[in-house]
């Protein structure tokens, strides 16, 4: 099943199961979403529950917060994560803090779907990966599914969660295919997954980089290096035990993501490993991230910019040398 279909199925199943679930966003209704992720939902659930909105990101997120405070379970879409700055007050100062600062009087079961990612020559304002912004804020849960099965299972869990959950998809994954278990399929929020077992090095990879890390592991096995690929799946709250367990086992750590390095999620992973598994480390931790520049448009530059299997393998070889 395609990743994009897994998203539609997750929303369909949850909307059918719970009539409090509503859907808001630009072009999510009649058009079925820019990448087709919400196709057919308007026909199935009607205009009361599936709503095309104006281009009003602040109003969309604010309305979702209000609707959640008043008994619904909204799913909203911010079309590209790059645009999240336009509604960041609602996300950070309202959605993330309300439950806490009001002494638990309100619960905000809001799901905010958005996507990140370079690779389509979409240029600087449509290719960024800003998940670290969200991970930095207490009160938000952040998931970043890399496979169709995970996006379905995590999105369903997000919809059932009583907290705001940001679901960070990747635009280049929408067309990818993978097995999705039949029937009710939930992936718990906060649980990492070992994508490939290994004993020499742990590669923690996010989103699309999971697939690059798996390719890198294939390359490395030819050199006799056994790489374990760990997909955290949930960035906040993070499955620290899985991370520390894997590092304790392999003694080496490489982290790969598409977001920028400074204050990126890899810095957090490295810090957790340094704090919790320092004595197991046989080599310095390495991060594989893009250069600290906006995402360039032109193909040769964007290709140079993106981390890939080759760059991950090179970093692993360094720490294993």
């Amino acid at each position, binding site marked *: 099943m395609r990743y994009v279909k897994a998203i539609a199925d997750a929303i369909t199943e949850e909307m059918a199961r719970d009539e409090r679930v509503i859907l808001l966003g*630009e*072009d999510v209704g*009649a*058009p079925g979403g*820019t990448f087709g992720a919400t196709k057919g939902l308007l026909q199935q659930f009607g205009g009361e529950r599936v709503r*095309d*909105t*104006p*281009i*009003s*990101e*602040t*109003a969309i997120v604010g309305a979702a917060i209000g609707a959640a405070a008043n008994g619904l379970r909204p799913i909203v879409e911010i079309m590209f994560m*790059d*645009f999240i700055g*336009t509604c960041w007050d609602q996300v950070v100062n309202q959605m993330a803090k309300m439950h806490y600062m009001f002494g638990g009087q309100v619960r905000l079961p809001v799901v905010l779907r958005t996507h990140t990612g370079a690779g*389509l*020559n*979409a*240029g*600087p*304002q*449509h290719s960024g990966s800003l998940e670290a912004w969200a991970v930095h804020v207490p009160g938000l849960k952040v998931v970043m599914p890399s496979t169709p099965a995970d996006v379905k299972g995590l999105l369903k869990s997000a919809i059932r969660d009583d907290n705001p959950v940001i679901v960070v998809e990747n635009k280049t994954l929408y067309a990818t295919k993978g097995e999705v278990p039949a029937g009710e399929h939930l992936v718990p929020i906060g649980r990492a997954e070992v994508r490939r077992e290994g004993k020499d090095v742990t590669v923690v990879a996010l989103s699309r980089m999971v697939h690059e890390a798996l390719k890198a592991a294939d390359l490395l096995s030819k050199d006799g290096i056994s790489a374990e690929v760990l997909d955290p799946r949930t960035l906040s709250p993070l499955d620290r035990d899985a991370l520390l367990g894997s590092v304790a086992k392999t003694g080496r750590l490489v982290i790969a993501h598409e977001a920028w390095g400074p204050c990126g999620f890899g810095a957090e992973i490295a810090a957790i490993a340094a704090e919790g598994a320092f004595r197991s480390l046989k080599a310095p931790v390495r991060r594989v991230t893009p*250069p*600290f*520049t*906006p995402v*360039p*448009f*032109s*193909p*040769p*530059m*964007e*290709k*140079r*910019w993106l981390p890939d299997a080759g760059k991950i393998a090179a970093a692993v070889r360094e720490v294993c040398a």
Partner: protein
Amino acid sequence: MREPTREQGLAIYRMMQLIRRFEERVAECFAGGEIPGFIHLSVGQEAPPAAVCALLGPDDLVGATHRGHGQCLAKGAPPDRMMAELFGRATGTCRGKGGSMHLCDMAHGVLGTNGVVGASLPIAVGTALASRVRGSGQVTAAFFGDGAANTGAAHEALNLASVWELPVVFVCENNLYAEFTPQSVHTKAGSIAQRAGAYGMRGVRVDGNDVPAVFAAAAEAVELARGGRGPTLIEAMTYRFRGHHEGDPMAYRQKAELEEWRAKDPLPRFRGWLGERGWLTDAERARLEAEVQAEVNAATEFARQSPWPAPEAALEGVYA
């Protein structure tokens, strides 16, 4: 009512031709895989940029939209360097860093096309503020869509420009759709121009496929702005003949609607207007259209022959 002079009329017609041919070529090159990324064309919407920019000088500024090739060309950005940017080549206006949605040409007063809907309006307020403070006499024209009119940024910018009486002309190209969503779904009030009253600003709605109508409204707005009498909101009713982006199958609109608007194509309409005045003879028209075609061909060849940027150029230019 100010009308274009013969010279202005011919220049506007030539510009509309250039925009139309340039964008049709972009469509071909995109379909042929020569242009990467996302492309939003303004075919059918040539009148507002051509007429508004005909009233601006080289030092004036334009804030463009994601559908902004026409706005950039009309402000004087060179077609060859623009085409090279769309192709992602090193000779592009942004050296291949920006592409269609982030195409800037400051040398010609183009503040950039913009991938963030609504974002060009506050920026235009800023350039206008600077022209006031510096006493430079520049006017800024900010283009935006009907969809953009609903962003918070648009509301804040309109209000601020009005409060400070800044030299901005806000030009809403209302093409009736925001992506795939029709205006009736995203906006309750029929007219966007009427919002001007709420901000204490002049607002006028015009037929955006009628060059003289847009020209007259813009002439007054530019004159007032230049004279220190504040901003105007112009809503130009128009239509795009192609999809939201290239590759959009346009499932959301009726064929009849498209036909109806095709009959109002601004190019033949303005050609007729010029013809009535005896300003555009068949010979003149043939000469002008051949010139435009040659210019577009040259731009395409320039882009094709231009080198790719070095991959390492991705690392340059983050800081000044």
